């Protein structure tokens, strides 16, 4: 048990270092506009916009090849921010690309998982852990809710669960009160 823990901790530390190194090493020089657009996109990396990730969509917007209303996870607010950045009029979300959904995370039924690793290969942010033929688990904190792991699973054991509000994510609601107009 403790060795497993140590290995995991070691792995986490190592990957963290690699990640940090990669962030520096693989930094590609790109246009500041693409970066600004990418900063607005939600980074779900779901591909619903028709591009293989948020950065490619950002690049396409920057070069005028894609419209600003193709990202369902970003929703209306995302469109408004893009419109503001680019100095164009906001428009409603293009429903062809999907509709906004409440934030969800993938959950693997550990009873049914056969450890085939297909979901790991599909996950755009490496949020699924597990070795070949061993049960797999989603790290909820890192899951973006992109749903890309669902179709590849041969035994349909992955489900999306809506993230429930808890005390740390609870939001004070917009005040509802009567206003008398004069």
């Amino acid at each position, binding site marked *: 048990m403790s060795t497993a823990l140590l290995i995991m901790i070691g792995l986490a530390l190592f990957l963290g270092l690699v990640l940090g190194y990669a962030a520096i090493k693989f930094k590609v020089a790109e246009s500041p506009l693409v970066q600004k657009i990418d900063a607005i996109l939600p980074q779900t990396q779901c591909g619903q916009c028709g591009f293989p990730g948020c950065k490619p969509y950002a690049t396409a917007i920057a070069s005028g090849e894609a419209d600003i209303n193709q990202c369902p996870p970003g929703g209306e607010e995302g469109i408004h921010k893009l419109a503001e950045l680019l100095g164009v009029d906001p428009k409603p979300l293009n429903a062809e690309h999907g509709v906004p959904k409440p934030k969800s995370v993938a959950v693997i039924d550990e009873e049914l998982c056969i450890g085939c690793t297909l979901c790991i290969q599909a996950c755009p942010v490496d949020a699924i852990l597990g070795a070949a033929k061993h049960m797999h688990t989603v790290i909820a904190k890192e899951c973006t809710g992109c749903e890309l792991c669902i179709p590849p699973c041969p035994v349909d054991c992955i489900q999306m669960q809506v993230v429930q509000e808890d005390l740390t*994510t609870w939001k004070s609601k917009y005040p509802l009160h009567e206003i008398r107009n004069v």
Partner: protein
Amino acid sequence: MRTLYQFHGGVHPAEHKQESSAHPIVMAPLPTQLIVPLQQHIGQRAKPLVQIGDRVLKGQMIGQADGATSCAVHAPTSGSVSAIEMMPMPHPSSLPDLCISITPDGADEWITRTALDYQNMNPGEVRNRLRDFGLAGLGGAVFPSHVKLNPGKLDKVPTLILNGAECEPWITCDDLLMRERAAEIIAGAKIMQYLLSADAVLIGIEDNKPQAIAAMRAACAATGFEVIAVPTRYPSGGAKQLTKILTGKEPPSGGRSTDIGVQIFNVATAYSVARAVLHGEPMISRIVTVTGNVEQPRNYEVLLGTPVKELVALTGKQRNDTQSYIMGGPMMGFALPTDNVPVIKASNCLIASSPSLFPAPPPALPCIRCTQCAQACPVNLQPQDLYWFSRGREFGKAQEYNLFDCIECGCCDYVCPSHIPLVQYYRFAKSEIWAREREKQQADLARERHEFRLARIEREKKERADKLAAKTQGSKAPAANADIDPKKAAIQAAIERAKLKRSGVTPKNVENLSVETLKEIDEIEARRTQLKQAMEKQSDSPK
């Protein structure tokens, strides 16, 4: 005579103190059940140390501090752990959080208590012990005290302020504590002074509490501590406001009081520090004012974890027109959605609210920009602008206008002739900004992980290509073995697939999988059909 300074604005609502302050503190009896939340302080939730069925003693640590900003929780009496589960919390949402339920055994049997010889201990060690005693600020903010008692890089904090102002209407728990237990409060202040190496200890009390002032002055004799009566004006008990009144200094916007050499604690926190250090008693109880629409308003010493329902029942029969209980005062508190929640370290006061005591505000009118709110704001903000931006969801603008300096004191609400629930708008705007901050952090993490993944895939591709190149150049690989296996596997896989098709289940994505994996899929599918059948049987069978 010390010169006192004035903070900007403030209001003076009806005090309603005499209702509950006329009687001495009463010990609340043992409740039938104690629900002890693991998160009663700002910071990380404590980690449970016990299991269901364990017998615990009064004062035994049942939740351990987790990380630097966290503190422990303890069993308030002896008994057995009956549950460790998510229970509704005393919060505007009543959302659940992890709690340890204890069924008291009636013996009220203590752990062995030992006083700390704190003057001969390393200050860091004393602070760790305070953390393990569960010390958190009892004024309502419940910040872990050991963190605030660390002078950090500065070798000292010159001024220690004890806050006994208790400026909110209806609340009298600090007043009664100062009247009855002044000596212990001062003993606690001495320990705090020692830990901070403070030169001066100032104790600020609103001048509407003459008995408390007299008791504290008597207890301070020959200590050099100074008890200062401050004018009664809400919110003089705000940390920044009291600091301003007593020292004339104000921490910068977004800064801390230690930036100007001041640390400030509630008097009840000082009392608890004394109980912990001098008697070995962890924080397991607090004084709670129960007042408002009740038969006998009183101050009770209540075990933390006591259900609100059982506590308010002590004041007599519940009146029919009581609509809810407010935790905290009428200015900064909130209505509890249910009385099925426990008393926690932050519960200084429970007010039974009725339509006659707290009538619903009349419908709001549009803002007439009269700036009365700005005159009342003790932080010198422009509430009417903050309202405008919050209402219009212009959160960036609201932040520019220092939304986060707002202490939600409610002075602006109180004076607004248009009866606009201003603070509700500020709370809404603040939590939206926090939510966006969280989303941004998540997006940044996702971006970083995605980029790393792309780089990794790229690297692996290159490595594979390099290997292949090396192979074709080098020795001819003995292809025989490699040739037979895949063929065999493919045939086997086809057989398996056919088998599956026959039995009516068709897993997807099964091309290019190994035979073992296919077999496993087969097994899983068998298990699922069994499960499905069992479930169908269950739903078929009559109830």
